[in-house]
């Protein structure tokens, strides 16, 4: 009845993705920080454990994995923070678009802006700890599956803390139980690859979990946000 031209779903998704990526690019200083953090943490391991190559090689895969996870946790808090503060999130929730899909796009943008740089420098981190080069493709594959999983799970938790003021430590406490399985399977694949055993099974588990999370996490995120902002 009104002279409405409702935008299509794809159009709206692209609008969200484009805006968030533009914002990330405008504040690219923030994008560098997790990378820097990962580099610093990784370079501390040899100092703490000694430069002995065999020992470093043994812990390399796990150390890189945990470092990347912590770096992502550092950036997680910012996923919706500015949107809540300036009211953009309310506008997003009132838009005639499925909120879950829009939030999925936001999570995707966040993953592209924070996790992809970490994945790019992961071979460097692995090299610093003498991870054998044949394992590095497996490391990248594991990270490619594990980091979006963490972003999706983190997105739900960040949505839950949306109505609170402080959330840094709280987020870590809430994320820990959720990321235990992710770490176990990613590290399991790496350990198997390092020992020359078949590593496809844990990677397949990670992939299955990712598929499930891609479907369910945005829905949970939308529900959590509606609950958390209901005040």
């Amino acid at each position, binding site marked *: 009845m009104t002279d409405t031209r409702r935008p299509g779903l794809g159009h709206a998704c692209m609008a969200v993705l484009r805006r968030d990526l533009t914002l990330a690019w405008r504040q690219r200083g923030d994008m560098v920080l997790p990378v820097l953090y990962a580099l610093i943490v990784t370079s501390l391991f040899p100092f703490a454990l000694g430069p002995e190559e065999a020992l470093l090689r043994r812990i390399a895969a796990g150390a890189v994995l945990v470092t990347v996870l912590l770096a992502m946790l550092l950036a997680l808090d910012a996923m919706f923070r500015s949107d809540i503060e300036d009211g953009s999130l309310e506008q997003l929730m009132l838009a005639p678009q499925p909120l879950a899909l829009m939030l999925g796009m936001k999570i995707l943008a966040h993953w592209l802006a924070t996790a992809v740089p970490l994945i790019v420098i992961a071979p460097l981190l692995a090299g610093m700890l003498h991870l054998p080069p044949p394992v590095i493709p497996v490391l990248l594959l594991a990270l490619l599956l594990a980091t979006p999983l963490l972003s999706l799970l983190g997105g*739900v938790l960040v949505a839950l803390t949306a109505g609170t003021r402080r959330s840094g430590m709280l987020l870590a406490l809430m994320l*820990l*139980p959720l990321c*235990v399985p992710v770490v176990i399977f990613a590290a399991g694949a790496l350990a198997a690859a390092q020992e020359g055993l078949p590593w496809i099974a844990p990677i397949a588990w990670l992939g299955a979990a990712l598929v499930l999370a891609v479907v369910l996490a945005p829905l949970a995120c939308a529900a959590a946000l509606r609950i958390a902002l209901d005040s």
Partner: protein
Amino acid sequence: MANWIPLWLHKLSSPPVFYRFAGTLRPWAIALALVLGIVAMYGGLVLAPPDYQQGNDYRIIFIHVPSAWMSLFIYAVMGIAAFIALVWRIKLAEVVAMASAPIGAAFTFITLVTGSLWGARMWGTWWTWDARLTSELVLLFLYLGVIALYHSFEDRRQGARTAGFLALIGVVNVPIVHFSVNWWNTLHQGSTIRLLGPSTIASSMLWPLLTMMAATKFYYFASLFGRVRADLLALESGKDWVRQIAENEVRR
């Protein structure tokens, strides 16, 4: 049609009615818990003979196993209450879910400490990354996460609903953690050690165990009622029935 059940439930979910209901039941629940607890301890610590393999150490199971069972049972109650709170927005369900969390955390903590004491004796180590212990640790973190999230909101009811959502996520998470740690242990050839073997348990040990389980359950309800009563007072402090209670209490 038994439509008096929903009606009865609806009446019970009104805060002043439940406050009185809980107040009446609470002394009975704690009395039963104490009596059963004392009987179970007499049976477990005095009557039951030492185990031929574990000597007297196994007596820890009389509190360890009921606590572990309670840590899961209370989580289930919390999950169900949280679900009801989120779907039907019933104030009482929110309060029950959030009052359950600290009790569940307490039992989970007891499970971990007693398990650790038992392990120190049996395996010579305080901690092992076995699937059960790890799941229990994750459960403790979940409880703490729920409690922390609840308290980080200024609005109690909103905090309760949000933390309830986290509790529901945890319901999915705990089995996944258990499964993944199991898988992880087979990968690392860790030995899974069981506190209660598949071996048959003597009835002289079984009845104190079951009695203690009943005792902890009654304790949970007593403690839950106490917490719910306090929370309801805080939540409804503007209402007349709470003011009446405050006035009556000072006269005594």
